[in-house]
Each structure stands twice: as structure tokens, then as C-alpha cells.
């Protein structure tokens, strides 16, 4: 479970998030909201990429007081992934594998599932946006985390990759992994059994 308490995030004078208290129970959650509503900011805050005031806990482990243990429990795929252009896909996979204690078998299966084995050995600067997205999604699944945050996973992904993404999510969910997914496109088309839908509006998070 993700527990959020008195979370505030501002850019300059603009309050982006103001969440007195909120919980995401284990499951697959769909996070909605208009452009600029703070979905990505919330994902970055939960994944430990951005600073905030307040408290976020996963399985009772607080991000601020136990940053290492907390990060073991959550991974994140950005909406617009950015990696150094000279790095090869395989180098990133290897880096994630070492950092998140994933196995070669797991990475190999993800490469095959997402169909990126053919180009993974090329520098990411040569990737198309779709290829980069697939790599970024595969990286988020490497490791032993309990929660995987996917920011706009459907954007730039080709049609026939959608069932693959759906089945990878469902496989992992069957193994006890929970998901928080932002998407402007309906997730129903993916065939996912969404546990609950949430919406960010006026800096607040509410059940939709």
C-alpha cells in the first residue's frame, strides 16, 4: 500500500499537489487528470525523483527516513524517457539489473517480450521514440519492486505492442506487483482489470 500524508509540492509560487491524506491499495490503479494537473509530478514524487514536503510510505517504509529500502519497492517509467544518447540499450539494462538486483533471465525475458532484442545493442540516440518507450518500459520491470509506476505507457507505442504490455502487466500483477498508471487513453482497451480510478483536480487527488 502507498500511503500519502500531508504531501505538498510547489513549483515557484504555484501549488501543484496538496494532498492531506491518500492511499493506494495493492492493485492496478489508473490515474487521470488534464494536462499540467500534476500526474507526472505525483509519479516523480512517489518514485523518489522529485522533492516534496510531507510523507510517503510504501508498506510502512518512509521515503524520507529509509530512502534505500523505499526505493527497493518502487520503480518508474517516465512519459518521455531521456537517457544519454551515447549509451547502448544493453548498457542501461545492465545498469538497472545491477542496481535493482534483477537477474539476466528476467532482463532477457523482458527484452524478448517487448521485442527490443534486435536493437538493444545500439546507442539510444539512434532509437525512435517508440523504441525508446519500449526500452524505458522494460527497464521499469527489472528488479524485485512491489510497485511499478508507468507514466503514459501507451504514448508512442505501436498498436501491436499494446497486448504485449498488457500481458506483461498482468503477469507481474499475478505475482503480487501493483501498478499506478497515468494515461489519457482508456486502459480498458488494454484488457486490464483496473482496481480503481483516481483523478487529480485542483492539486487534489480524488477517487474518480
Amino acid at each position, binding site marked *: 500500500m502507498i500511503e500519502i500524508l500531508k504531501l505538498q509540492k510547489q*513549483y515557484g509560487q504555484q501549488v501543484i499537489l496538496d494532498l492531506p491524506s491518500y492511499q493506494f491499495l495493492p492493485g492496478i490503479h489508473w490515474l487521470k487528470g488534464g494536462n499540467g494537473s500534476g500526474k507526472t509530478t505525483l509519479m516523480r514524487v512517489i518514485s523518489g*525523483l*522529485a*522533492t516534496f514536503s510531507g510523507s510517503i510510505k510504501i508498506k510502512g517504509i518512509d521515503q524520507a527516513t529509509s530512502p534505500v529500502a523505499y526505493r527497493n519497492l518502487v520503480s518508474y517509467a517516465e512519459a518521455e524517457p531521456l537517457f544519454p544518447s551515447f*549509451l*547502448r540499450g544493453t548498457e542501461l539494462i545492465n545498469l538497472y539489473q545491477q542496481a535493482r538486483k534483477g537477474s539476466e533471465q528476467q532482463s532477457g525475458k523482458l527484452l524478448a517480450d517487448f521485442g527490443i532484442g534486435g536493437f538493444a545493442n545500439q546507442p539510444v540516440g539512434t532509437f525512435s521514440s517508440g523504441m525508446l518507450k519500449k526500452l524505458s518500459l522494460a527497464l521499469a520491470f527489472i528488479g524485485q519492486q512491489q510497485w511499478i509506476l508507468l507514466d503514459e505507457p501507451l504514448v508512442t507505442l505501436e498498436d501491436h505492442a499494446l497486448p504485449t504490455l498488457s500481458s506483461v502487466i498482468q503477469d507481474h500483477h499475478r505475482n503480487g506487483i501493483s501498478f499506478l498508471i497515468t494515461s489519457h487513453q482508456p486502459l480498458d482497451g488494454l484488457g486490464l482489470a483496473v482496481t480503481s480510478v483516481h483523478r487529480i483536480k485542483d492539486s487534489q487527488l480524488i477517487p474518480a
Partner: protein
Amino acid sequence: MSPLYLPWFKVIVLPFYQRHAGLFLFGFVLLFGLVESSQLLHFHLALMTGMLTSWVMLSLVTASWAVYTLKVIHFIHKELQLRPNQFMLLYQLLTQSEQRKLLWKVVLVLLEPVWAYVVILMAVGIYFEQYLASLFAGSAVILLMIATVEAVRHRINHPEQVTFGNRLFSLLTPTFHRPLPLIFWTQSWRHQPWGVILTKLFNLFAIYLVSSNMDDHADFRVGALTCLAVAVAHSSWIFEMRRFEEQQLVFLRNFPWSTWQRLAPIITWTCLMILPEALLWLRALDDKITLFQWLALYGWTVAVMLFFHSLSFLRPTMESYLPATLGAFLVLFILVLFKAVPLLVVLLPVWTLVLWHRRYYQTDPAVMLGRSTR
């Protein structure tokens, strides 16, 4: 410069020379720096006549030109593949002869170090009546140029095709996985190659000058102050690395790494970065500094650079960071005069570790990119 040639100059020619500046510098030092200046002409004449009279040597040299040509082709192919450079495929619209005419210009500039040397070699060959060897060298270079022009033309006209060349180049690409310090190093080199070279040249010159003019068993503070200047010369570079980390390696923040695991690659990168300076200090070993003092100078430079690195948590914009490093430089300068180096070599890394531990997660990456956040 013609409008058709200009994109090639900016996308290919200039970056090629910038990114391989170290290689050229190395070649220059090898050819001109290792021989007494009075012997230089004689040395090169002997080298060239050696090539012209020995087919084995000439073949080896030709092979090295071929490797250089491969490097040029590889570079062009790689750059053409990058997304921002995809517009270069518009050159498909030129006729074959227009493409060739343009690419000959490009190749002439890129292979200039090879053909310029060969022109001199041929002149020497004709003077010493080694006509066949001269003809061989000249023909080899012309063939290499034709091959380059055609390989690039093929790439422009068939960008999607996986060629033998592509497979060969993928074999030439390093297959090992770069550890983080090498990722930082690659970025420094790619992002500001001239900055790297000029900083290094400045530092090496400063160390050479100081170590040459030091008295035997001179005051350790002279070396320590030189190293302080070396560290300051790296300060904007250090900040750029922090910015790179927060922009393109921001995903590392999500890794379950301890402070030490995050700091260790930075320490390794710093040690690697000032290795050339440390090696140059070795020339002063024994008569001017002891081995312990050499180690202390190395440690001192690393400590100051780590301190500068950690300053970016307190001063996260370039506008506030550079004055802070300058202020720190002045304070450290005075402390060195008061013989505080041994104390600082311990204190500065401790300060760095504490600051990293306390401030790493409290500093938003967006701040490094100039955005106000809390």
C-alpha cells in the same frame, strides 16, 4: 561556405575534429614532441624514406590510414543515424554527381591529416626516385577517399539497409558495459571536448612549470597551491557533470543506492579525471617530492574537487555556484598557507559525505535545471 556544405560542416566535420581532438593531440605529440627540435627534420625524413624503401612498413602505414578512414566512415554513419540529424537524408534529393561533388569536399576535409602527409611522402619519394612506392601511397589514399565518398553516399540513399559496413561497425563498438565513472567521462568528452583539452593543457603546463622550477625538497605548499588551481580549473566542468546527472541520469535517483554507492562513482570519476596531472607530478618524484607527498597532492586535489562537487547542493545554479567556488578557492588558499592541507585532506571528504547524505534527496533535480521548486 555553400548552403549545401554548411550542414555537413556543422553536423559532421566540426564535431569529428572536436571529438577526436585528443587523438590528434596524441598523434601530434608522438610525431613532433618526442624528438629534439634540432633532429625533427632528419627524423621525419628517415621515417619517410623508411616507408618508401620497405614494403612491409608502407603496408603497415597504409593499414593505419585505412583504420582512420574506417573511423571517419563510422563516425558519419553514427551521426546520420541520430534523430536530430535525420534531416541530412534530404541529400537523397541531389543527383549522383551533386552528391559526389559535395561529399568529396567533406571527405577532403576529414581525411586531410592523411592526404596532407601522403603529399609530402610522395614529394620525398619523387626526390629520392622511389616512384613505385610514391604511386602506391598516392593511389591508396585516393582509393580510400573514393571508398569513403561511396560509403557515405550509400548510407544517405539507403538509410534503412543493414549493410556489411553496419555489421562491421557494430563489431567495432565496445561491447563492455560502461560503469558510471566512464559514463561521466564519456559525457565530458562528448559535451565539451575543447573544454577538456584546454583545461588539461593548462593544468599540465602549470604543473610542468612548477615542478621544473621547484627547488629540491621544496615547500609542500607550492605543490598544494598548484593542485588547488588545478581543481578550480575543473569547477565549471564539475557543475556540468552534476547537471548531466540531474538531467539525463535522473533515473538513478530511483535506484536503491546508499549515499556511499552514489558517491563512489563520483570519487572514481574525479580520480580518473586528474590522473594525467597526477602522472605529470611523478616527474618531480624523488628529488623534489617524496612518494608520500605525491600521494598527498593527489588526495588533496581529489578532496578539493569533491568539495566543489558537493557545493552544487548549496549553490545549485551556475550563477551562484561559480562565485562560491571562487570564494572557496580564496579561503582554501589562505588555509594552505597556514599548512592546513593534512587537516583539509581529511575534513573536505568528510564534509562532502555529510553534505551528500543530508542534501542529495533534499535537492530537486529541477533546481539544477533552473526551476524554482519546493
